[in-house]
């Protein structure tokens, strides 16, 4: 009988070490009480017109949504706009006119290099518009796209 108990004890201790560790959950806060919340972020990819950098959506205390581009670089061009498109991501050669993809206009691209902010119209559904595109409206050319992920 005794060897069996020893065996059982050995198994029990093995199970404790490997399997039965309780699932622990932490809930630390960011050491910041900033009024501006970071909602989503993503990196740009672009091939035809090399585009790089980061797109981040912030929400201000009053609920206003701001898109901010950082470390941003694209090629300069005519009639280039910043838009949100209703897609998870966009191909580097996407034509949103042809594909009939719904989009939200955020404004003319302020500069082809550098940090810049754009206001997102109130009521824009971020669950639907998940990708930022640097888009040449004149030729319906996608310079670059950044798929947004939850921050």
């Amino acid at each position, binding site marked *: 009988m005794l060897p069996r108990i020893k065996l059982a004890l050995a198994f029990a201790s093995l199970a404790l*070490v490997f399997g039965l560790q309780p699932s622990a959950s932490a809930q630390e806060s960011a*050491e910041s009480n900033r009024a501006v919340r970071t909602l989503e972020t993503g990196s740009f990819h672009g091939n035809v017109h090399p585009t790089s950098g980061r797109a981040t959506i912030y929400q201000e205390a009053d609920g206003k949504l701001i898109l901010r581009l950082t470390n941003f670089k694209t090629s300069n061009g005519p009639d280039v706009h910043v838009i949100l498109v209703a897609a998870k991501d966009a191909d580097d050669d996407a034509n949103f006119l042809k594909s009939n993809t719904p989009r939200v206009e955020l404004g003319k691209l*302020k500069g082809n*290099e550098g940090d810049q902010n754009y206001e997102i119209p109130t009521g824009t559904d971020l669950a639907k518009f998940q990708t930022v595109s640097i888009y040449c409206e004149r030729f319906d050319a996608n310079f670059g796209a950044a798929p947004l992920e939850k921050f």
Partner: protein
Amino acid sequence: MSDRAISWLSSHKWILAGLGLPILVAAWWAFRPERLWVNVKVDEPAPFNSSADLQPLYTGLLAGRAHPTSGRASIYQAPDGKRDLRLTDFMTSNGPDVHVVLAQSTDESLKQDFVKGQLNNVELGLLKANQGNQNYDLPDSADLSRYDAVVIYCERFHAVFGVAKLDKF
């Protein structure tokens, strides 16, 4: 081209120029080729007060290796220069002797579930919990240009639970 055609062209060159010029102007307006060489730089401030608040430096999404792992790893810098790692929407499986470390994203051993030998890493501490938002202090000496990946690492069995490649914020 025949002599007749050439003489027609030379006698009507002003008409041709009158037709050609608007076409050239229209083409210039449409393509704005000079913009290939002209850059427009902007430098707008962040929508938050960056001098008095935490500044995000890097971020990346965790991908599972030996155990399903998900969430976001971000590195923040406080105004006094202190940096910390914050895990959000974090989830991994619980295990023995699990640590949070920084490693080099180019390290071949991170491609496998288990590291053979020692993982070249910067220790940030024991994993506080396998779920939830959590913060870890970064040593002042940690060089993020070299150690550009966050790894959830079981030291006892050299198991890579998950890896996040950090990209500039």
